[in-house]
């Protein structure tokens, strides 16, 4: 049994490694993670240290230039990437987890359960996201921060970040649920599912083994759409005073800051181009990895899906 199940995995891995786009994407993502996590520490830079020379254009002393306080943009981008990677991964992760299981159960059970689950999604859809996020985070600030500050004051920023990620994830799963449900409804009547059912495969196994592989595609697409959405939503939260607290930075807030450079009077391009460019690159890499994973695990690879 073990050898049987591990060999498709190994096959898929080999297929994945043969895919050059996917591998380079993976390498880039890993590199970005390692550099942004250990970089600031190894290079001993302080992203919040003003240098006295604001708005220096990129050059040898400041690779990506400086901002209004004279802070080095490169170190801010590094630190910002670290936060945004975390926010994106956890936020999107939470939303995929809830969204996929909700859609799966709803689509699979069908009938009354499906109707109620989907109506609940409709209700949640209509509730204003801002209010929800603001409420949960305000509650966190008023209830939990006081409690934490008596015990572990140093952990407050971490918890604040965690609260934000969970709050973000908890409102962005609705579209995923709808899409997964639609896929499941469509898959449910396909011969291979019916066959599996007729030979008495348990529902859990049916979902894991037969539905999930067919859902991998939509999940990956969804991830590549949600990660940037969550990262950017975080920058919107800073408009509410609920995002990353200044003077810290995230890619989202750096991009939002840089957006003001799009004017016809004076353009300090580096403030927008570097953070936005990095984000696009990371997403392209994520896309590549997603595509690679998907074709590596495709249920019936090479059987006439290419023309």
């Amino acid at each position, binding site marked *: 049994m073990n050898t049987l199940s591990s060999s498709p995995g190994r096959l898929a891995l080999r297929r994945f490694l043969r895919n050059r786009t996917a591998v380079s994407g993976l390498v880039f993502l890993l590199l970005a993670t390692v550099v942004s996590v250990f970089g600031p520490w190894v290079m001993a830079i302080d992203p919040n240290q003003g240098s006295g020379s604001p708005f220096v254009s990129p050059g040898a002393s400041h690779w990506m230039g400086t901002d209004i306080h004279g802070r080095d943009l490169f170190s801010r981008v590094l630190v910002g990437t670290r936060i945004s990677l975390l926010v994106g991964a956890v936020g999107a992760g939470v939303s995929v987890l809830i969204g996929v299981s909700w859609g799966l159960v709803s689509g699979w059970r069908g009938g009354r359960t499906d109707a109620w689950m989907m109506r609940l999604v409709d209700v949640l859809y209509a509730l*204003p996201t801002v*209010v929800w996020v603001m409420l949960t985070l305000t509650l966190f600030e008023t209830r939990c921060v006081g409690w934490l500050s008596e015990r572990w004051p140093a952990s407050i920023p971490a918890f604040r970040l965690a609260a934000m990620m969970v709050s973000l994830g908890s409102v962005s799963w609705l579209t995923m649920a*709808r899409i997964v449900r639609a*896929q499941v*409804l*469509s898959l449910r009547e396909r011969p291979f599912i019916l066959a599996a059912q007729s030979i008495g495969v348990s529902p859990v196994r049916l979902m894991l083994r037969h539905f999930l592989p067919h859902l991998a*595609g939509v999940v990956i697409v969804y991830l590549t759409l949600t990660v940037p959405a969550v990262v950017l939503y975080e920058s919107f939260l800073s408009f509410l005073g609920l995002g990353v607290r200044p003077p810290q930075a995230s890619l989202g807030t750096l991009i939002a800051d840089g*957006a003001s450079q*799009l004017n016809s009077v004076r353009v300090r391009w580096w403030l927008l181009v570097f953070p936005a460019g990095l984000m696009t690159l990371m997403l392209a890499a994520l896309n590549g990895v997603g595509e690679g994973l998907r074709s590596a695990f495709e249920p019936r690879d090479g059987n006439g899906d290419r023309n």
Partner: protein
Amino acid sequence: MRPWMARVALIPVLLWVVATLSFFLLRAVPGGPFDRERAPASREVEAALKARYHWDEPLWRQYGRYLGNVMHGDLGPSLKYRNHSVNDLLGQTVPVSLALGGMAFGVAIGLGVPLGVLAALKRGGWADYAAAGLTLVGVCVPVFVLGPLLVLVLGLWLEWFPVALWGSWQNAVLPTLTLGLYFAARVARWMREGMIEVLRSPHVQTARAKGLSETAVILRHVVPVALVPVISYTGPMLADLLTGSFVVENVFQIPGTGAFFINSFFSRDYTMMMGMVLFYSLLLQVLNLFSDLLLRWVDPRVGS
């Protein structure tokens, strides 16, 4: 009773649930509509103001009053815009957002669907890369960057289109593009996904085996089923589009409803916020119902 009729009958109930939840959630947020930087002239003046909006009553009674008024089609006075009722504000701004959203929807579907189809058919080919590039830009470049960028290039430098305001068709071009591209990117992504999923299913091979031309196979047997994810995304997307986008309306100074989603929360204009929530919710449920019906129709397996 047919299932969709039950759905229709359920709409008022769901609206009530949404209204109730939002009503109490909103009131739990700190700050109120009458908090200002400048303190009121006197306690009497403040009390008079609150009495005018029944703010001095217990919350449950305000809730009852609100529901009663909503039943009669009256969404109440705006708490911020003191010379306008919520009905009045919605009446003035909804047509604008419907127009803009409708056109952007056209762009999103008109661009996104063909692009997704091409990308899936030429997987790994140039069309795929072009589509991937577009979606990447559409997804990564936030609307608050894309909008000003289009304004800068097409409005200020090339002077092809007006930079803002609303009135003639020229005014609509840039905002439609901004909003349309954003959603086209998502539609293209889902379309490509649906296509890939369908292309490898057996019934396509059956169709091919019957000797149908490749175009006929694609158009008749692949695209309809491949629309499944797109259609299930359409409900929320159209609801988002038709109720207006805060950023696009702000950047292009368009008098639509989108501004109120964020601003009425910032100013704690509860009645306006509730009006928006109800309007959005109604639209969403109707559109989701349509998109579910449509799903069943393009892919009959869904219904059973």
